[in-house]
């Protein structure tokens, strides 16, 4: 799980062009949206694409994203349980 979390942080930084952020800056339970990492609605769509492209997970209901993308912890747990690649 720790390996997956580290991989997720690196992919998020790359995909979302977070130039001023390093993996060490993102705590596992930090909020990804709002006051945490400050991601926006377009970032949320990018994360949905990332789940599909990298882990073979298609979100049928985008509203699921709110709970899944709460933090690195919640994302990693969801991916570990649902990944198809």
């Amino acid at each position, binding site marked *: 799980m720790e390996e997956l979390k580290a991989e997720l942080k690196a992919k998020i930084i790359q995909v*979302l*062009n*977070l*130039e*001023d952020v390093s993996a060490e800056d993102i705590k596992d339970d930090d909020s990804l949206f709002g006051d945490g990492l400050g991601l926006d609605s*377009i*970032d949320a*769509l*990018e994360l949905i*694409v990332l789940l*599909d*492209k990298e882990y073979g997970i298609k979100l049928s209901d985008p509203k699921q994203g709110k709970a899944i993308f709460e933090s690195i912890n919640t994302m990693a747990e969801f991916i570990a349980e649902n990944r198809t690649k």
Partner: protein
Amino acid sequence: MQNQAYIIHHARIAGNKLYRNGELIFTAQAEGFADFAKQAYKELNLDYPKFYKMDNLSKLAILCADVVLSEAYNHQNVAILLSNKSGSLDTDRRHQASIQQEDNFYPSPAIFVYTLANICLGEISIRHDLKSENIFLINETFDAETMHAQASYLLQSKKADYVLCGWVELFDEKYKAVLYLVGPSGQTEHSINQINDLINK
């Protein structure tokens, strides 16, 4: 009816060089526009992380606009009137590449939202908190007469107190931006000849 207008400030970006009012203020040894833009962002101390998420056309527009518009113009009634030749084709092509293969079909929302040239108007407006008239025209070459007429109309009709005008072109690593701010006072007359001089230098 005719109120005299002036070119207050101007800026130019081309060939890894950035000029403010004709003076070279930054040059870089850069490998491509993205590298140049990153270096210029740091040189100008923009402190605006959203910059990194923009496409290259918007980065070019934001950099040039930041040189022309000091903070004194934030929240002011500054209309924006821009033009280029290639529209958003540079980003359109990146989007096309992401949907080219049926078995690797992953369009990026962050790229897709920049597949309109006038998005860079919005980026400038957000950056400087402008809620003003704006338009983006696509032309083979810069049309100084139209730009002059439209800027004059916006000022004379009091739809704007200032107008940020110019050319913001980027395609396939070739780029050039020339922006100038028109307003009620300044040293340089807002005339078609002066505009052509600025653009074609």
